[in-house]
């Protein structure tokens, strides 16, 4: 590390004598390690470059949230059948609550159809209103 920093920064005097030339020859690696030595200065240019591309990466919280896609849109569903309880069951909680859109990623239109379908299925005992005991 220290030897590659040598060309850009005044480093400890022992380093440049041993390997000043290899650091200078590989300039990209040198630039990278200089960022590491510079602490917060290093990640910042990278983050600035990534900002227009990926808005999910932002600030210190460096996690990428997976984009949720409406399952019904993917399958191009035009009608959600209330008779197929196995289709509806992933969208209810164990206790029988209908899951909100923000949890499942369902689009507004399909969520509207879905709630109707779930409520119909509940009425004919295909899905529970609430978990029993």
């Amino acid at each position, binding site marked *: 590390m220290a030897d590659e920093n040598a060309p850009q920064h005044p480093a400890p005097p022992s380093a440049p004598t041993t390997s000043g030339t290899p650091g200078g020859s590989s300039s990209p690696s040198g630039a990278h390690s200089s960022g590491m030595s510079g602490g917060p200065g290093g990640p910042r240019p990278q983050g600035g470059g990534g900002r227009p591309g990926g808005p999910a990466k932002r600030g210190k919280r460096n996690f990428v949230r997976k984009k949720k896609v409406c399952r019904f849109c993917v399958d191009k569903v035009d009608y959600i059948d209330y008779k197929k309880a196995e289709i509806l069951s992933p969208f209810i909680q164990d206790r029988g609550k209908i899951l909100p859109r923000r949890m499942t990623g369902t*689009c507004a239109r399909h969520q509207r159809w879905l709630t109707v379908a779930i409520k119909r299925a509940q009425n004919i005992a295909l899905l529970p209103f609430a978990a029993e005991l």
Partner: protein
Amino acid sequence: MEERQYDLIFICRPDTPEADVDKVIATLEHAAVEKGGKIEKTEKWGRKRMAYRVAKLREGFFVYLVVRSSHGEVVKELERRLKVAEPVIKYLTVRLDEELKRQEKLKRHRDRRAARRPRKTAPVPPQPSSPAPSGEQSAATS
């Protein structure tokens, strides 16, 4: 009045012999015809576990019918018969023709768009359902 389509599901006690279930279906069919309707489809789903207890039972014999009629008298009569039928513990009638109409319309719309899409450069899809490029191709070829 134009014809309407209904789904009719009813649940019998699980211990009723199938002959009795058939009898119920037969009476319903008879009543529907009498009132000017028609039972298009009959499906016996058989014994299934119910999601909650109905009449202190956990299981039920599910029967699914598709009813067509042009006035509400038919459904009224069918529901009355189901109410008095001994083995029936639960029933549900759902009017479906409008939803099926909507489904058809959406499908037509989608097919039309899939058909003309290859010529145009893809604009922003007007529908919220953003079709995947692979699915589109398959839709266009089919």
